[in-house]
């Protein structure tokens, strides 16, 4: 396939995943503030501020972070970029994929124009999340397992690894790694938010039916081989699909394998004790660096030659 088209397919998929991830963390934060009875307080402002920083947005409110088209990191901007990329790859993706992505974009645009958009925020965010699920399902159900499919999967799971790493970083910076003394009501909300923002709370509870122990959460989201948003799962998917891409030449293939090998190695050959010993932020910083290098190698091999 055309390099430009492969590039667009990869980014289309990344932006859908990014929009979904942003929508989920915004919605989780919103309900968390209500649960804590903190809406409008200074602590609430810090919580919101942290999430906005994580999204990389310049918006100052949850509402803006969803709807502001002039903010490149807003949910609507991400969805719009996903769609612009999809427009460039329509001859590669299925019509159904385009249709559903396009509809999701139009629904969000329409929601942005409603006067009740603040009251309906929850519904809108849930719709973005559901649209992404639907789109991923439609992609799975209608697209040929060729090269284009490979780039879409790589994009999706690269973005997912990146988002999960950022979310873990946020939880580590705001919460203690120790199990707090006292009863279950003392559970650190930061870790709960992390589990909810990665769709992992139910899976976690099934594995750890006692209290939410930060070490266990960390272990689960970094290393669980079966959790579809863990770092380990995500990088394994990325590596697997990268191996299947067509080989340009031996040298570029080896360079690519080296980069992805380092990335998966970083996850495969660590455990939670190492991570805590080195400091989670250091560990995650290295991870992000390796992810970015692998990403650059992929782009140089397939998109930018």
């Amino acid at each position, binding site marked *: 396939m055309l390099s430009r088209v492969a590039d667009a397919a990869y980014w289309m998929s990344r932006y859908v995943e990014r929009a979904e991830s942003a929508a989920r963390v915004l919605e989780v934060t919103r309900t968390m503030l209500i649960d804590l009875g903190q809406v409008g307080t200074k602590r609430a402002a810090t919580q919101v501020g942290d999430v906005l920083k994580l999204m990389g947005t310049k918006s100052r409110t949850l509402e803006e972070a969803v709807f502001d088209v002039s903010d490149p990191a807003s949910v609507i901007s991400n969805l719009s970029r996903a769609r612009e990329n999809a427009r460039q790859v329509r001859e590669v993706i299925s019509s159904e994929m385009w249709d559903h992505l396009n509809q999701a974009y*139009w629904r969000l645009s329409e929601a942005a124009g409603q006067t009740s958009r603040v009251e309906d925020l929850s519904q809108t965010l849930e719709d973005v999340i559901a649209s992404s699920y639907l789109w991923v399902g439609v992609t799975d159900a209608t697209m040929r397992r060729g090269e284009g499919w490979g780039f879409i999967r790589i994009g999706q799971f690269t973005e997912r690894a990146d988002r999960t790493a950022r979310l873990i970083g946020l939880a580590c910076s705001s919460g203690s790694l120790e199990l707090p003394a006292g009863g279950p009501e003392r559970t650190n909300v930061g870790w709960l938010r992390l589990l909810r923002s990665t769709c992992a709370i139910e899976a976690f509870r099934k594995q750890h039916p006692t209290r939410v122990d930060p070490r266990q959460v960390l272990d689960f989201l970094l290393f669980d081989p079966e959790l579809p948003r863990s770092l380990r799962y995500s990088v394994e998917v990325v590596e697997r699909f990268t191996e299947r891409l067509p080989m340009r030449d031996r040298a570029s293939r080896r360079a690519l394998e080296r980069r992805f090998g380092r990335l998966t190695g970083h996850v495969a050959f660590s455990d939670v004790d190492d991570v805590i010993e080195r400091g989670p932020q250091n560990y995650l910083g290295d991870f992000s660096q390796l992810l970015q290098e692998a990403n650059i190698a992929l782009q140089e091999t397939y998109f930018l030659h």
Partner: protein
Amino acid sequence: MRLDGYDTEGFFDEMVKPGGGVRPEYNALALRLAELNATEFANRQRMIDVLLRNQGVTFTVYADDEGVEKVFPFDPIPRIVTAKEWAHVEKGLIQRVEALNLFLKDVYGPQRILNDRVIDPELVLGATFFRREMIGMEPPGGIYVHVVGTDLIRGADGQFMVLEDNARNPSGVSYVLQCRSVLKRVFPVLFNEYGVRPVDDYSDTLRDTLNHVAPRAAAQPTVAVLTPGIYNSAYFEHSFLARQMGVSLVEGRDLVIQDGAVCMRSTQGLQRIDVLYSRIDDDFIDPVTFRPDSMLGCAGLFSAYRSGAVTLANAPGTGVCDDKAIYPFVPDMIRYYLDAEPILPNVPTYLASRPDDMKYIMEHLAELVVKKTDASGGYGMLIGPKASNAEVEEFREKIKASPRAYIAQPTIQLGRHPTAIDGELDRRCVDLRPYVLFGDRIRVTPGGLTRVALRRGSLVVNSSQGGGYKDTWVLADESAGNSEPPPSHARSSDA
């Protein structure tokens, strides 16, 4: 939806007969429409808009600094062409395209028609879209015009006439295919009793046409569609055709010349292209040969073409046929090359560059339609009877200053067609653009784009000027739709 109170005002109407009453081929349709109430009709019309928007059948209007996406307005009332009418149109178009192709082969070759002074050489060699770079170059199979869209109108007597030829880069065929599929979904009932000839093999035929002109004997030539990119107003169509044909959609920046061949940068390295269906104006395809400021093309593309490494469809230089000052000579071309009388007549045309015609134009300017010879899309036009004195005088000066750049035609009342406007059927002017493909032989897609001027009384059907479109039904056999008595109360008055 009924035709009660519909008034043809004495003009030719596709659906309503001069004496009132519905034409036989429209009987069944009129009955179906009468069964639909206005609310239901409006609901279905909204469904159509949503479907078209979801499929991305939109064009972008740049107002302020933000692009607004609009759906090209589609009117669900189909235009019906009988089998007999179509047979005539088809024969006429095949004849015309054959003559145009022979003309191109001639003017870029021996130039017999110019030497014999059938056409003034100055007119051809000085045309904006004449490409001297094409002289002496014969493309594979001697085919220059692979895709042609010819605009037809009906005069007062209902006779089809050719208004203009689009031999460069005719667009709109994606709307033909898309609107048929949408209409079948939303108004299946309208198709009852009609054997409508399908249009959806267009893309296969286009693919065959392009395969046919591949330069090397490859079992499966690599074809690609060349687009200016996603900001072009016809991008949807470029992407649609690439998808339908199952080929790559490339931009200039995807192309590179290697060892004289045109290649696209793919994830597996450079991949050679045999045939490029170019949807970029030919002066933009290669900054080395044509416009040096073009960012849309690929340096070296034209020499690759001349050397036979790649085929371009349409060939560069075919725009000389679109020149409105050359248009009046197409009937002469048919006589000269084919030794036959034209089946489809032209609209009478006055050339400002001919002294007699100039005199006539100056005397009758306020009654005439004036067009710029190298413009299209309804731009640079004067419609005398609708223009102010100041506008007429402005054109008078322009014409005097550059006679070669203008032609004039009598103001022709286009044929009309009932069109759904605010829940009622109202008369609107229509034209018809059929699509002709030239591969191993010349084929005409049954139907085409029926464009509608959505403003009442307007004669301009271009999408850029407030036009919409209709589905065009070419009937498979003569008696279709004619099984029931006419229910209409439409009348016809003399206006």
